[in-house]
């Protein structure tokens, strides 16, 4: 932030120099021909020149015209949702007053991300979806990020109210590393925690100009990652979107009191943008969300060992001594009670024959856990700030200095549940852009704040209150005592638990909090639950469009980038206790496209080469063809490859969770654990009675080859936009994990790995030799009805090909899902009333994660909003509901049940 302030000061000093007057201006105003309100952000350009400006928030504009221009001139007005209007201006002094007619713009939208050059969406050679600002301001979603779920092929995992992860083409999860989110050109994956933070640190809703979603492999242009898709969120240009805007959504959640007591929801946003003059503009945005979070309260029992690992099994605390509830923490600690019982038998031989009747098979017993409600902070807060200073160095070169910063409390589901407390993340960027090129440098600064692993913390809390050695001894003696008093096995377990749990701190008491906090604030490396992650990313990238040089032959685009990750967790997450670990990546790409037969068919070929300091270089090509079968009707074909380098955690993590230590898979990690000198043995083989040394091949990036056909066309007199796609994907070198055991003796001996106390269990990432095939399709319709009504619908499907039994793919996608939207942006007298209803449904599916595997039931959600415009004060009031019917649903196992959220909002100058 300090650095940012310095730049601001510098720019302010330059102000007098950059204010230079144009000698001729045309001024005027623009209003809606139907509603009568003044229209801001309307593009105003001088026909036949590159001179242009935008109307301000009050609909006024001043267009500079080069000296010596001959009048009359033609001025073009355009804005999304309105027809293009031309007027003739006779002389410079004339006030140009224009009324724009609302018009259908189906298929007219321009997307940039499909080819990194502006393209009409209908001519995009790959599958793409766009959400424009009109859709965002009219969506019922309380948080704009949710709108993505209404696009076809999109799955969302909601780990909490503010922590949402979108995915396409399957493999959904919290913190999906196969799907990239890019905000204003910056990859917003938290570099150390490996999840995209779009819903936490991204743009404030008022600053979102558009979202573009590329379904499917998109590494060829956006680099490693994005194997399954890329979401690009673009902010509003302060030159175009000016003035003060604010929006206050006040709502209520948990209305039925099922998981929590009814609680308010606040979501406030403000944006202020000012065009100082034709060269300088700036903006500032801030947003605050505050609520009581949705609660993850799945108390089903999870199997934590053996072939059934991760499966949901019968049993609750009262009936399974080894109960491990999904959203109950601390009960992951387990011990075979036979160890204690045999100890007693050793000391009391007269009980040994009796005890031997109890120890015929293992007697695993878990410690008593605490529910998520008891150990995580219910207050979810998300505060974000952002801003930019845009300065036009010349008529064609613009410099942008921008930054986003966010902080908050939320909950995240990884291999455990994490309470992200005071998480802070900032992204800062300096960019120079020209019509033909751009250069940008940015950094992502991550700070885990007081974030802690709720699972580990609660387990250690139990140890801090009563060490397991003592607890299990008390339990074992009480269990035996209970039996000797005639109790049945189950009752003896209950009696033993209540005995060992005697004096157990009650959640919510000062004593509980004192012990809990003492563990929570101690770093993981020092035997606590705190993450100290301050990993940063530094990136620089550039792109040059050579098309103006190669005009007439073909369009050519080249670019390149360099990234450096600097892992810094002080040994709490990565193996970086001795110092920061750098990881470098660089890449370069080129794209050429050429149309034939008057653009009847257009071929685009792109390729990209990337190298990571830990991995061999990879080349990924993409070839697309766009076939025009009629005006505004295109078929598209694409073959894409994509891959991702293992995440920073898959490279360097060093974290003890549960019974195993997760370690990274790069050679340095394997060397650090001396795999050569002290061989590791497969735990699976060991369980089957074999002592087998686990061999490790080179750890490689994961790759996918994807082929896709699609069609997009305007039908029914341009009132119907139809889009459809079908794809197949072939994945190889899938990154998975393998459990191995290694001796911890000073002088290792293979026999050590048979003894629990002489070995450690390591979880090491490897590439699976199994190839995984996926396929799917999607169809969407957008139909414009008379009187401004519209209806949109889509249905999509993703399926996993055959895999061998027991192979965990984490595919995590419903076979079918669909959305239906019905709405009107302006109806009734003076078109002041708007409404929008979205119905979403998805089929049940098997969800697999490191935490648990099981069925996510089918669910449906109905969102709705109704709004009323107050044109005189440029405002709109809205009544909205997310999950109107308050039918709870989960998006993934161990994640919260999401209920209804009802709000009223007031927005001023929302564009």
């Amino acid at each position: 932030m300090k650095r940012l302030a310095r730049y601001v000061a510098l720019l302010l000093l330059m102000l007098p120099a950059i204010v230079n007057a144009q000698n001729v201006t045309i001024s005027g105003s623009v209003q809606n021909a139907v509603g009568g309100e003044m229209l801001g952000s309307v593009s105003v350009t001088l026909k036949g020149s590159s001179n242009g400006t935008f109307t301000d928030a009050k609909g006024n504009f001043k267009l500079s015209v080069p000296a010596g221009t001959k009048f009359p001139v033609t001025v073009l007005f355009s804005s999304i949702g309105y027809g293009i209007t031309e007027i003739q201006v006779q002389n410079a002094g004339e006030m140009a007053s224009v009324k724009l007619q609302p018009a259908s713009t189906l298929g007219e939208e321009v997307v940039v991300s499909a080819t990194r050059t502006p393209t009409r969406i209908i001519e995009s050679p790959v599958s793409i979806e766009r959400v424009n600002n009109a859709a965002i301001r009219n969506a019922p979603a309380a948080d704009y990020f949710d709108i993505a779920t209404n696009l076809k092929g999109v799955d969302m995992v909601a780990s909490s109210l503010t922590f949402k992860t979108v995915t396409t083409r399957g493999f959904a999860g919290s913190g999906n590393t196969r799907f990239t989110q890019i905000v204003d050109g910056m990859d917003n994956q938290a570099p150390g925690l490996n999840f995209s933070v779009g819903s936490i640190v991204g743009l404030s809703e008022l600053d979102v100009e558009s979202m573009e979603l590329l379904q499917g492999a998109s590494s060829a242009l956006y680099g490693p990652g994005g194997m399954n898709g890329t979401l690009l969120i673009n902010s509003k240009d302060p030159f175009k979107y000016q003035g003060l805007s604010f929006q206050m959504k006040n709502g209520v959640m948990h209305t039925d009191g099922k998981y929590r007591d009814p609680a308010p929801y606040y979501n406030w946003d403000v944006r202020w943008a000012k065009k100082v003059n034709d060269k300088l503009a700036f903006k500032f945005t801030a947003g605050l969300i505050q609520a009581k979070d949705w609660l993850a309260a799945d108390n089903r029992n999870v199997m934590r060992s053996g072939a059934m690992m991760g499966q949901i099994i019968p049993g609750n605390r009262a009936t399974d001594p080894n109960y491990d509830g999904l959203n109950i923490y601390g009960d992951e600690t387990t011990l075979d009670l036979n160890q204690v019982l045999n100890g007693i038998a050793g000391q009391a031989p007269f009980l040994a024959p009796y005890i031997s009747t109890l120890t015929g098979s293992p007697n695993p017993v878990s410690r008593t856990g605490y529910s998520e409600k008891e150990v995580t902070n219910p207050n979810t807060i998300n505060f974000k700030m952002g801003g930019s200073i845009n300065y036009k160095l010349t008529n064609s070169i613009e410099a942008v200095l921008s930054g986003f910063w966010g902080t908050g409390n939320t909950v995240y589901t990884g291999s455990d549940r994490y309470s992200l407390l005071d998480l802070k993340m900032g992204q800062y960027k300096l960019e120079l852009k020209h019509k033909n090129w751009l250069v940008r440098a940015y950094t992502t600064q991550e700070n885990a704040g007081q974030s802690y692993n709720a699972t580990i913390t609660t387990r250690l809390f139990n140890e801090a209150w009563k060490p397991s050695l003592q607890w299990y001894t008390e339990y074992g003696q009480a269990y035996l005592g209970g039996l000797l008093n005639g109790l049945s096995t189950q009752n003896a377990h209950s009696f033993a638990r209540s005995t060992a749990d005697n004096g157990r701190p009650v959640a919510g008491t000062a004593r509980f909090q004192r012990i809990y906090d003492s563990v929570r604030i101690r770093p993981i490396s020092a035997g606590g639950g705190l993450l100290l992650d301050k990993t940063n990313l530094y990136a620089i990238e550039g792109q040059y469009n050579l098309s103006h040089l190669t005009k007439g032959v073909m369009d050519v685009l080249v670019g390149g980038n360099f990234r450096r990750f600097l892992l810094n967790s002080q040994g709490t997450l990565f193996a970086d206790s001795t110092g920061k670990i750098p990881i470098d990546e660089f890449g370069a790409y080129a794209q050429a496209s050429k149309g034939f037969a008057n653009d009847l068919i257009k071929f685009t070929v792109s390729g990209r080469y990337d190298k990571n300091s830990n991995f061999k270089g990879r080349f990924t090509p993409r070839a697309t063809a766009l076939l025009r079968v009629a005006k505004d009707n295109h078929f598209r074909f694409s073959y894409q490859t994509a891959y991702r380098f293992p995440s920073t955690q898959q490279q360097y993590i060093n974290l003890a969770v549960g019974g195993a230590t997760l370690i990274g898979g790069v050679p340095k990690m394997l060397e650090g654990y001396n795999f050569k000198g002290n061989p590791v043995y497969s735990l699976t083989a060991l369980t089957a009675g074999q002592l087998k040394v686990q061999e490790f091949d080179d750890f490689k990036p994961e790759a996918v080859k994807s082929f896709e056909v699609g069609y997009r066309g305007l039908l029914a007199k341009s009132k119907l936009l139809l889009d459809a796609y079908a794809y197949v994907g072939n994945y190889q070198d899938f990154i998975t994990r393998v459990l191995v055991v290694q001796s911890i003796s000073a002088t290792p001996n293979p026999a050590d790995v048979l003894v629990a106390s002489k070995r450690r269990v390591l979880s090491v990432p490897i590439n699976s030799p199994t190839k995984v095939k996926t396929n799917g399709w999607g169809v969407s319709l957008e139909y414009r009805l008379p009187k401004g009504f519209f209806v949109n619908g889509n249905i999509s499907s993703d399926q996993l090909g055959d895999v061998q039994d027991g192979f965990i793919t984490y595919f995590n996608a419903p076979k079918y899902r669909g959305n239906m939207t019905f709405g009107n942006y302006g109806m009734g007298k003076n078109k002041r009333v708007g409404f929008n209803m979205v119905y979403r449904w998805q089929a049940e599916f098997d969800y697999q994660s490191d935490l648990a595997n099981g069925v996510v039931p089918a669910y449906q959600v109905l969102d709705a909003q109704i709004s009323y415009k107050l044109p005189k004060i440029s405002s709109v009031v809205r009544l909205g509901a997310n999950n109107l019917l308050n039918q709870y649903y989960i998006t993934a196992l161990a994640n919260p049940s999401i209920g209804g959220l009802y709000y009223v909002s007031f927005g001023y100058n929302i564009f």
Partner: protein
Amino acid sequence: MKKMSNIMKSVLPVALLAVIGVTSCNKNVPEAMPIAQPVQAGSTIGEILNTNTNFSILKAAVTKAGLMPAVSDKNNVFTVFAPSDAAFTASGISLAVINALPAASVTSIVQYHIVPGRKILANDISTAFPNVQMPTAFVIPAPNTSPLVRFSNFPSRRAGNVWVNNIPVVTPDVNTANGAIHVTAAMLNPPSRVLLDTMARDADLQYLVAAVLAADAGVPAGSKFQDFLANPLANFTVMAPTNQAFMNLFAFLGLPQSPASFSLLPAATVRGIVAYHLVLARAFAANLPTAATPVPSLLSASLPTAPLLTFSASQGVKGAANPIYSKITASDRHAINGVYHKIDQVLMPQ
């Protein structure tokens, strides 16, 4: 209006679809499923005692001991060795005796018949020599403080017959909703004295007791035979040569036939002889192997190469250096920490 109806035509199907959709409900996250406990069919032990007229004395005893609620509770599990009325009578116990006895005595007697917390069926009982030691509901009284320290009884199985201590089970495996009942041929009398005390009171074992004292000479407290034989938690079988057996030995050795003669022998020899007569398990006569079987004595515990004893149910017991078997002249003298059988020879390891 025409336009409006057109709109309605388009809108209606959509609205209908939505209505159809939303009338079904999202599934809530299922609650954790309790593991179904097998429903225990049939009567409880208490109910059987209350209704079976063959158990009227036991019923009175259990009631007097205050244990009827416990054995009637389906949440409990017990294995009860249950003397029938005939068995009590055979043991000299009538209803009147039960009524006359102090409640504490009745309670100890009843508790001694019960193995709590486990349902042990005949097939669960080992056929290995000599038997299995099972804790009973009878807690060893003060100075013991641990509720885990119990009087033990000793179920065994031989050739399809079940025994507990030296008492035959006449009807095993009466299944109940809260455990098992094994009907016994006699009452199990809980022992009240430790071996050392019991043997000291046996006029026929004065030489043996003298041998123990002689063997302990110079041995630090805590490691003496007396300590072990007086420890209620120990578990021994003592093959106890009678006074006559020792007198025969002294005569053979040319020593005076008096308990004092042990002091004329080297202490180590006496210790060896005593240890050779102790077995670290409680073998009742019913548990003795039918075929001659080598069994380690306590001597083997300190000297792994020590010669073994040989047991035979029909012939008795033989020391390695004895030319013939010693006959068991009196068996199953039961104490808290073991049992002794009187034999007519001193067993000689070498």
